[in-house]
């Protein structure tokens, strides 16, 4: 045996020992993982993923910090301000930019090299979305689109054809009226009147929150006012959409599942819930637009806390969670959003799942995607616009007044 070979053997032996030591040693790393998108419906799926990961990586224990969406960002912000954020956590795209800009996140590129983790399993576009200033500050976890869910039974009863890709706002209103006529407590559609729906609906009408180079707000443009008019008319003028009082605190998913509303506009993350809960036949279609089509594209990514002391373990967990075959298949089977992977077999498995019948609408929607408007004071902007939208929905202000007031307040309080 030559000397060189011997030394190679020694090096290998040392490497093997080094690699097995952490597994053998009692030193188990515990990492915390903050998340919101599992909600209550995909709780079990996330737990199964965690169990599978821990089985494959006996040296790491994952602690799940699961919060509801509403509470999540409030808590996360306090945690970051107080320096106690989880080791790794989920962020939606709109907050990702703000957090990356504030240097709260770890650059995953160098970390991946030292940890020996590869990003090759991801869909390239999805991966790019979580770059900021050319650095990979997060990995995509899942993405989702918003679709038009419809109740086939109610459409049949009203004797109208099912929605298709050519539908526009008018078709929605006409179909909504016919379904509303079916009964006192049956409604045509539910599409929440809030910030997220608003920036998408105005895009369907060629409008936008800002001017082209994002230096000025254009919230009260004529296109936007027309779009809000459409959203509000469904509630007040036609009442094909229940008012908040008529809805009386029930969730929109619940009333759809109970067969009380013909259409709802919600994300493909509702598939899991509807599969079990819907008491009617239902399907989905690409959302109707007005002058053009526009579909929400939401992406949730996973990031690592800049001050975490367990970054390597955290990276192994989040990349496994979002790009391993095993975890992706668990996600697909549960219908919990869409995995951001390039693996054809996973994508095919997703499309083949039922219900709904028209799963490919998820991919069709990607042609018209509208991404969230990202600015640093995102939460405050959303709160200001939301309030005025509610005023319009309640009939307290006309869409024109509401958006004029929103414009004024935004100009006063938000730095672009």
């Amino acid at each position, binding site marked *: 045996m030559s000397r060189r070979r011997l030394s190679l053997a020694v090096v290998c032996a040392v490497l093997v020992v080094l690699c097995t030591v952490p597994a053998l040693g009692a030193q188990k790393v515990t990492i915390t993982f903050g998340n919101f998108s599992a909600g209550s419906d995909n709780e079990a799926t996330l737990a199964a993923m965690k169990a599978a990961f821990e089985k494959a990586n006996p040296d790491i224990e994952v602690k799940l910090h699961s919060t509801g969406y509403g509470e999540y960002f409030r808590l996360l912000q*306090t945690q970051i301000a107080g320096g106690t954020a989880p080791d790794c956590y989920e962020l939606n795209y709109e907050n990702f930019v703000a957090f990356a800009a504030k240097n709260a996140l770890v650059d995953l590129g160098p970390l991946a090299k030292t940890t020996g983790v590869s990003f090759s399993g991801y869909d390239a576009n999805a991966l790019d979305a979580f770059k900021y200033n050319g650095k990979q500050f997060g990995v995509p976890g899942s993405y989702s689109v918003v679709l038009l869910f419809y109740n086939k039974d109610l459409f049949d009863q009203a004797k109208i054809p099912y929605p298709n890709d050519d539908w526009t706002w008018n078709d929605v209103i006409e179909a909504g009226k016919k379904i509303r006529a079916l009964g006192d407590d049956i409604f045509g559609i539910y599409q929440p009147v809030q910030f997220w729906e608003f920036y998408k609906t105005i895009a369907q009408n060629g409008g936008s929150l800002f001017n082209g180079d994002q230096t000025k707000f254009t919230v009260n443009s004529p296109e936007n006012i027309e779009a809000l008019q459409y959203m509000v008319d469904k509630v007040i003028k036609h009442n094909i959409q229940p008012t908040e009082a008529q809805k*009386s605190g029930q969730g929109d998913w619940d009333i759809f599942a109970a067969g009380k509303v013909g259409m709802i506009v919600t994300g493909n993350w509702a598939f899991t819930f509807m599969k079990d809960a819907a008491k009617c036949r239902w399907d989905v279609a690409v959302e109707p637009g007005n002058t053009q089509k526009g579909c929400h594209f939401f992406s949730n990514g996973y990031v690592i806390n800049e001050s975490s002391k367990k970054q390597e373990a955290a990276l192994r967990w989040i990349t496994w969670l979002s790009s391993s075959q095993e975890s992706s298949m668990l996600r697909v089977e549960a219908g919990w959003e869409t995995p951001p992977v390039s693996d054809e077999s996973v994508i095919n498995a997703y499309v083949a799942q039922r219900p709904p019948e028209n799963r490919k609408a998820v991919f069709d929607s990607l042609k018209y995607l509208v991404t969230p408007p990202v600015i640093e004071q995102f939460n405050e902007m959303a709160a200001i616009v939301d309030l005025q939208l*509610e005023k319009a*929905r309640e009939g307290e202000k006309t869409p024109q007044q509401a958006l004029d007031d929103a414009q004024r307040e935004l100009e006063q309080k938000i730095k672009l």
Partner: protein
Amino acid sequence: MYIGKGRQRQTTIMAFLAPTVLGFLVFSFIPILRSLYLSFTSWDILQPAEWVGLENYRILLGSEEFWRVMRNTAEYIVLYVPLMLIMSLGLASLLNREFRGVGAYKVLFFLPVLTSWVAGSLIWRWILNHKYGLVNILLGYIGIEGPPWLDHRLWAMPGIVLASVWKDVGFFALIFLGALKGINLEYYEAAEIDGASRWAKFRYITLPLVSPTTFFVTITSIINSFQVFAQVQIMTNGGPAGATQVIMERIYKYAFQFFKMGYASALSWVLFAIILVITLVQWHLQKRWVFYDG
């Protein structure tokens, strides 16, 4: 009292005062000054504070939001204070006698006071549910169709007031009970000899004699009304359409959700100013309105 001498005595005094004085400086005196300073700056924790002069106050007082918040608070006070006064005085009158089981009844009236506002808010969010809530079901028994309470901009504040009265009435009843027990029984005996009716006794003896307490309770509950937080945060989160936004809720949102510490501090100083004015008015009015038992 005279313990120890000279230096030793001084050390003793200082030792006893140390925790409180330290706490006073760190958690009260310096924070008050700091908050005043912050209110003249724009500060979001991440970037350094920038002096903006009166800008925060100018935006604040010129905003639709601030006046909406004031209107909401006024609505709360107008509904809450009279209802609470009547109910708590009534309850105190009921309890102001010797009878079997008075202790047990007191416990029952006190349960809401013991409950945290978080628990109380969750209960009332459920009770005020449009369709399945207790209040509307009870109204239904007597043939009234209940309003959608927290989901409606006109009914949300009354809903919060109902919950607040329920939660606080036992507390204020106890204060009134103390005042009632302090009334000299001879007044009533004299009135009875003169043949006064129950109402007359209540109107001309009880009411004037508890007036210091009534006044105190009124002022205190008005001041408390300006600082309502948990019930709003949990029951409506300020909605619908801002109909239940109140100052503390705004301060919390600006400071800990938008991280606008400067603006939030300005809001807190406006709150302070309001409370100060009420307190001064209280001192002024006290002399004229309240009848003291000589």
